[in-house]
């Protein structure tokens, strides 16, 4: 199932699902829907899902992509799961600041710190 989806790459570290975007712009409607569906199926996998989104390759996004991320965040919260965002480039991080979504999401500088942050709760 996951390997047939080209927009993200999935790995697992202990009980954390790590999602890496393989397309530099999560902007395209079709792309966003695709990513949303993939993340949705990861959330459905477990009772309290732990998801880490790695933004290392992301050079661009849009309000539609932000909407998708908020939806993912809401669904994870409903299931008492945890979501972390990591490796966000400064230009992209600024979009989170302008929209004040840096207050809504748990954003960590890198993957290691993001992984470590899951245990603190």
């Amino acid at each position, binding site marked *: 199932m996951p390997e047939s989806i080209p927009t993200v790459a999935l790995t697992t570290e202990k009980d954390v699902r790590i999602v890496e975007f393989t397309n530099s712009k999560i*902007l*395209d*409607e*079709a792309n966003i829907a695709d990513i949303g569906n993939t993340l949705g199926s990861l959330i459905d996998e477990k009772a309290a899902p732990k998801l880490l989104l790695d933004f290392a390759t992301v050079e*661009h996004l*849009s*309000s*539609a992509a*932000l*909407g*998708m991320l*908020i*939806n993912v*965040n*809401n669904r994870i919260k409903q299931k008492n799961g945890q979501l972390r965002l990591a490796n966000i480039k400064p*230009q992209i991080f*600024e*979009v989170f600041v*302008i*929209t*004040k*979504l840096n*207050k*809504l999401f748990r954003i960590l500088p890198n993957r290691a710190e993001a992984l470590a942050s899951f245990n603190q709760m």
Partner: protein
Amino acid sequence: MGMSGSKSRGSGSSGDKKKRGSVVDTATTGLSLKFKIPSDFKHQHEVQNAILDEVIRRGFNSQSTFAIKLALEEAMINAVKHGNKLNPKKSVLIEAKISPTVAEIVIEDEGPGFDRKSVPDPTAEENLEKCSGRGILLMEAYMNSVKWTNGGRRVKMVKKNEADEHPR
């Protein structure tokens, strides 16, 4: 100078399958790109790519290019999806004037229009978890000026090619 780009969208070109946009080169004042497209994502992205190619060709710095790319995407989505509701019978008109120092983009749809003041603030605490409503905020944050006319059906955005400026 002038039409030094190697793109096949010059006015005399017959290479394009269907000619939907027109390009008017006004050399010193900047290039004017005009498009009339049906309301779908494919045409939307073609237009965005054509305008961004020109922005880059005109030497806009990476920050200004990022800003234009973001605002253009939001404005085009507003026109195609929220304005024209993806109705293929409704068109979107786009005009972009790009000089080395400033980009002016006008986008007009055939939808019901909207009132800017009626759009709730997406950064308010109670709206932070809502999935939509951030496009306009981003346009206004990243462009130097954004103005709606014709009952909200027409938007004009201006971005200067300035170094090291930060969105407000």
